[in-house]
């Protein structure tokens, strides 16, 4: 006490600090020894006579008092018995203890404590301060440590009992604030950012270059200007064989035939290359090639994922839509609105609703016992994060549990974005392809009749009445009949709408609804035989193709912030809106998915066009200007050619989002046409080829590795679109795999049925994504498993066999001529002398080997009825084919 009495103006802080270090105010219980908050202030007032000093004292005490004096236990510290003065008693405390996390700089949990209105409006979990009721105010509970797992402040010393008492008094007295009107809070952090990607792209001026003859179109000016600045010359144009193979693989995903190559080599017109570009862009295989990266982004697969991983027999219908849309060169803005909100377009067509299948590629967990709501929430979150990544190039998903650590996206804004998707529900549409409905309608009555007879035979209807009764009872009174509880859970998780149908009176159910519920009953009701017979029956009759789609939920759920991203801890309700750092949503349209989609492709959205062009560039050059294609935020890698990226983005929008026109511009540039050979002078200057002084050689993606093998050998079935296929794969990889028959098994890799739990091995081996999350860029690994696949996978061996036969049938001439033909088929060029020499040597060795081991001939070429093909010759050339199909160049775009 004596020290306090000794206080002199100007030294108060120091003395108090000493006193605290001395440990005199050791505990709140020692009130008889230490003054409580109000007594204390009276002492100070009495002796220091200075309001300023008292502020200093309280600040000091707040920071220095030891935690031993803090509140323990369940009871709240008492309210301070004094008239609170905001400036003196509260503001310093808020500044010291709260505002570094809940102030102008950041607003953790969406809460800020730097204005009265902000305090009263609360945070992500709702109201925090109830004026007049400190006991019921969450703020007090948190600072007093009532919740042992979460105590505020999270860092630094806890508040003392006195400080809590002061806050209580402040709240009880009405949360008074000084100068409330004169000091509006500074805007939320998220609305301001100087990051380049948040400013709309402007069309940059084409830079001046010295070597103007090299420039074929504006793209080249940007690239060359940079190269000239670095003193680097671009590479020469690639030879014509390389150009046509590159172009063909990039635009159609298939190698050029020897005839196409010959034609191009012979075409001496100055625009021969441009003609080739137009030809490739109008090929129906263009849609197949360019669908694949889009499927990667959409995490497309043919099964549910998770434990049951049920096959989605109609998932392909959306893929079919994508291929057609790309082939028709649907403008990217329309491509966007139809996939995100086709159902909401005025007079939506069936195809526009089919387009919404984009967001049906999320995973579904049908494991018995899971909570459907948990995984529905996961789907909504996935749809939100995927939309953010695919269109905006933002890692919105990071803001699921807390405000984004780097980008100006708050947790609240994440859930505002999620609100657009939360009101959508999953539906399956009847979506027959042309010529499907006729045969279906014709045979349907017969099928229905047979089905009805079967159901009758097993007395399904009668038994189902009883089952339904029990399930409805279980829904009303869980815990009484455990068997029915279990059955009800199965209805919930194994069907999407089963529970809803169950609650409808039978006379109000549609035929389709009735079938869904009856099928579920049959699956779980012990009708093994009936189930088998029904499945067999269904196989015999044509079915209508369906399409997984989304539509607005007639009873839309509210969207809440989920505290720590957990569906069990909802916070405050939020309305759909876009992040404040980006342009506002149109205020004259309802905040719907459609408005969101249109906002994404509006002229003033700074991101969508850039992100899309960056990805296109990545397809043609192996890497985009921004090396993090899914992240254009503050932690993204800076663009290598920011002006070119902006030029492409503006050009893209100005062209009416014309995708093929942009692809044409890129592939017609001199930049694209450069040779890909490495250059010693670039080794140290630009080892990663960021400056684009040459093209880059790229290993083909998994599907194309298959496609080139099939195309070269002549096995490829070029039918476009339609159902997924099941080509042969080793036994034991997946349980059920009914191999496709006939020509179906030779369709392109993008049609291979992708089962999430048991993906087709060749695809996995060559880095196809797992389809669990949106994939903006694939790996390009080089592994021994890839070598084993190309060497020993029967699918590739079959291609070698077919290629050998093709060689023997198409070229009856001598060895060298045949080798040449083989090179033209596989690599689109003639062999170089040293290559031919090595191949001849191999042929000689192999001939000798087969002579020594004649028994192997029959094994590598089982006698088949093939006109004019000698098995020994075939066995010999199968070797040559295998060598070619295993060359690095064969699976590489040069």
């Amino acid at each position, binding site marked *: 006490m004596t020290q306090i009495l000794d206080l002199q103006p100007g030294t108060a802080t120091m003395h108090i600090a000493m006193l605290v270090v001395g440990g005199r105010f050791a505990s709140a219980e020692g009130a008889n020894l230490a003054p409580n908050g109000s007594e204390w202030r009276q002492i100070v007032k009495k002796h220091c006579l200075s309001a300023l000093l008292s502020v200093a004292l309280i600040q000091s005490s707040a920071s220095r008092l030891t935690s031993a004096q803090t509140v323990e236990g369940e009871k709240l510290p008492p309210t301070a018995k004094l008239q609170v003065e905001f400036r003196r008693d509260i503001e310093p405390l808020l500044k010291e203890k709260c505002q570094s996390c809940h102030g102008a700089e950041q607003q953790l949990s969406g809460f800020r404590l730097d204005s009265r209105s902000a305090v009263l409006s609360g945070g992500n979990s709702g109201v925090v301060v109830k004026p007049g009721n400190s006991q019921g105010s969450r703020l007090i509970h948190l600072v007093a440590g009532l919740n042992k797992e979460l105590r505020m402040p999270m860092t630094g010393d806890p508040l003392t009992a006195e400080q809590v008492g002061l806050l209580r008094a402040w709240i009880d007295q009405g949360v008074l604030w000084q100068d409330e009107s004169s000091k509006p809070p500074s805007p939320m952090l998220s609305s301001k950012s100087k990051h380049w990607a948040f400013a709309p792209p402007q069309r940059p001026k084409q830079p001046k270059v010295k070597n103007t003859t090299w420039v074929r179109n504006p793209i080249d000016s940007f690239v060359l200007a940079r190269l000239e600045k670095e003193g680097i010359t671009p590479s020469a144009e690639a030879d014509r064989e390389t150009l046509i193979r590159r172009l063909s693989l990039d635009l159609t995903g298939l190698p050029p035939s020897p005839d196409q190559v010959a034609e191009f080599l012979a075409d001496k017109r100055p625009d021969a290359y441009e003609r080739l570009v137009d030809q490739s862009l109008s090929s129906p295989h263009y849609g197949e090639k360019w669908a694949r990266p889009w499927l990667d982004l959409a995490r497309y697969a043919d099964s549910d994922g*998770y*434990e049951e991983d049920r096959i989605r027999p109609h998932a392909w219908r959306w893929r079919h839509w994508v291929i057609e849309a790309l082939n028709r060169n649907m403008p990217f803005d329309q491509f966007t609105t139809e996939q995100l909100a086709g159902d909401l377009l005025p007079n939506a067509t069936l195809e526009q609703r089919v387009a919404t299948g984009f967001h049906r590629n999320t995973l579904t*967990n049908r*494991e018995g*016992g*899971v909570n459907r709501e948990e995984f529905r929430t996961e789907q909504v979150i996935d749809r939100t994060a995927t939309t953010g990544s695919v269109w905006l190039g933002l*890692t919105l*998903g*990071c803001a699921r549990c807390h405000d984004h650590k780097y*980008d100006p996206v708050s947790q609240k804004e994440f859930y505002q974005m999620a609100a657009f998707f939360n009101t959508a529900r999953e539906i399956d549409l009847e979506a027959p392809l042309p010529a499907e409905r006729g045969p279906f309608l014709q045979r349907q009555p017969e099928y229905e009749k047979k089905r009805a007879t079967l159901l009758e035979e097993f007395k399904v209807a009668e038994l189902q009445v009883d089952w339904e009764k029990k399930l409805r009872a279980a829904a009303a009174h869980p815990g009484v*009949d*455990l*068997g*029915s*509880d279990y059955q009800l859970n199965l209805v919930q998780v194994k069907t999407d709408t089963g529970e809803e149908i169950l609650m409808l009176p039978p006379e109000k159910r549609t035929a389709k609804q009735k079938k869904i519920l009856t099928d579920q009953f049959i699956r779980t009701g012990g009708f093994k035989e009936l189930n088998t017979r029904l499945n067999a029956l269904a196989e015999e009759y044509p079915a209508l193709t369906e399409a997984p789609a989304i539509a607005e939920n007639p009873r839309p759920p509210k969207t809440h912030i989920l505290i720590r991203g957990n569906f069990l801890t909802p916070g405050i309700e939020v309305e759909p809106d876009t992040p404040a750092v980006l342009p506002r949503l149109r205020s004259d349209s309802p905040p719907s998915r459609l408005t969101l989609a249109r906002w994404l492709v509006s002229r003033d959205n700074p991101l969508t066009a850039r992100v899309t062009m960056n990805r296109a560039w990545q397809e043609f050059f192996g890497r985009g200007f921004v090396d993090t294609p899914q*992240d254009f935020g503050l932690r993204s890698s800076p663009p290598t050619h920011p002006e070119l990226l902006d030029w492409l983005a503006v050009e893209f929008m100005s062209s009416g989002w014309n995708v093929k026109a942009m692809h044409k511009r890129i592939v017609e540039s001199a930049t694209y046409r450069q040779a*890909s*050979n*490495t250059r*010693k002078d670039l080794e140290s200057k630009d*080892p990663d080829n960021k400056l684009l002084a040459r093209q880059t*050689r790229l290993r083909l993606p998994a599907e194309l590795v298959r496609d080139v093998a099939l195309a070269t050998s002549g096995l490829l079935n070029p039918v476009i679109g339609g159902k997924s296929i099941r080509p042969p794969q*080793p*036994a034991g*990889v997946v349980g059920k795999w009914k191999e496709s028959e006939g020509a179906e098994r030779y369709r392109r890799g993008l049609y291979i049925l992708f089962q999430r739990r048991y993906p087709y*091995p060749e695809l996995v081996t060559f880095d196809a994504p*797992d389809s*669990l999350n949106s994939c903006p860029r694939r*790996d390009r*690994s*080089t*592994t*021994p*498993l890839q*070598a*084993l*696949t190309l*060497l*020993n*996978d029967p699918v590739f*061996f079959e291609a070698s066999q077919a290629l050998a036969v093709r060689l023997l049938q198409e070229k009856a001439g001598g060895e060298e001529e045949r080798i040449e033909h083989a090179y033209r088929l596989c690599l689109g060029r003639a062999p170089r002398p*040293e*290559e031919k020499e*090595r*191949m001849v040597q*191999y042929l000689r*060795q*192999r001939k000798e*080997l087969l002579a020594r*081991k004649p028994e*192997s001939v029959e*094994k590598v070429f089982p006698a088949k009825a093939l006109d004019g093909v000698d098995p020994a010759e075939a*066995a010999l050339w199968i*070797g040559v084919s*295998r*060598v070619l199909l*295993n*060359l*690095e160049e064969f699976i590489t775009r*040069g």
Partner: protein
Amino acid sequence: MDFRKFHRIQTRRSFLDQCAGGLGTIALWHLMEGEGRTAAAGESLPDINPLKPKAGHFTPKAKNVIFLFMEGAPSQLDLFDPKPGLGKYDGQSLPSSMTKDLKLAFIKPDAKVWASPRVFTKHGQCGMEFSDYLPYTADCADDICMIRSMVTDQFNHHPGQLMMTSGTNLLGRPSLGAWVTYGLGSESKNLPGFVALTSGAGSPGAGSGNWSSGFLPSVYQGVPFRNSGDPVLHLSNLSGIDVEDQRMTLDAIRDLNQQNFVRAGDIEIASRIASYELAFRMQSAGPELLDFSKETPATLELYGINNEVTRPFATNCLLARRMIERGVRFIQIMHPTWDDHSDLNKKLKKNCDITDRPTAALLKDLKQRGLLDSTLLVWGSEFGRTPLIQTLGIAGESWGRDHHPNAFTMWMAGGGIKPGQVVGKTDDLGFNVVEDRVHVHDLHATILHCLGLEHKRLTYRHMGRDFRLTDVEGQVVSKLLA
């Protein structure tokens, strides 16, 4: 691990520099200049093994891991954690005060209690208790560190297994084995660094998600060894193609690739050449690995290879030891399924009969060969089972137990682990942990620690942030450590 450095390693060009200490690149440039000879039999090839061993964060105790994953949740109450306290309530519902926060997959908290019918006895110097279903494992008590206080967040199989193998309930994250091979590479030149072996009935709930590389490069993915056909897909030569033929073809492929490399200069071509040579080595290493003919009869007997019942699991255990000898970093043995919702007595015994002897044999065999000190053995599952009865509502079926995430048992042995002790305690009924709670994240942190990896520093940049196995959680459990 520094992300940027890693990214450079992944960029093939620098990748060769890193892996071959620059030597390979020099040799290849030499070739390109046209000054060198045409390389013979790969002698000038760089070592492109992407799993080349790397140093961890500090000196490790263990080098390799064998994770025996008993998928489906074996009942800890009938194997490891005796609860005489249950006897009092046997056949009755618990007072609701004791079950108010209970959340179960299929049964309601008012289900009846089932005291384990098993007999527990103490084993070894340490007196560790095991039930009569695990006589062989019990015999290793003094080498085992039992954790009775495991806790997870998930109570369904698929999310639960992902939690145990990758630290989250969501698909698409790297598994423990992938993180370890990412952090340490592998000593094996001819075999994958991370192998998954499966046996048992059915397939693991989370399938390949349990050995996924997630967003890590795919070279870190677990390679599933198959039980029939080739252990690694396409490892055998095709019918009619023998080693001589294969080698002759590979020589032609190599020479032609090399000619193209001289012309185009792309280091990718050199990587491709080396990958073919590695594939060829794997083709001979695979059969050698699978060939048990040089194992002594005593060893085969120890594992139970010659016994119908134990053979499949014993084969995987013996394979695991042979892989350890050949430098494989992480071996995950999956054995589904222990999901005994009904008929527990019968089904649990069956799985114990299959796995107990080979498991103990693996431990003993590693020990007698001096490999246990450098190998970390982990035995466990995604969660445990309830003290309550589940009948699934099907009359006539005998009792089972439901899923229970709040308390279950795992055990560890070998490198870095303190043997002969029981860590953690559950309450009298086995519902909750009352002492030394070990969350899955803590277990992961501890496993990484034994391997010389600091779980907070083993990160990978993905979608704009640094991910790690333990997310934002996890503490090394020092009580488990030697």
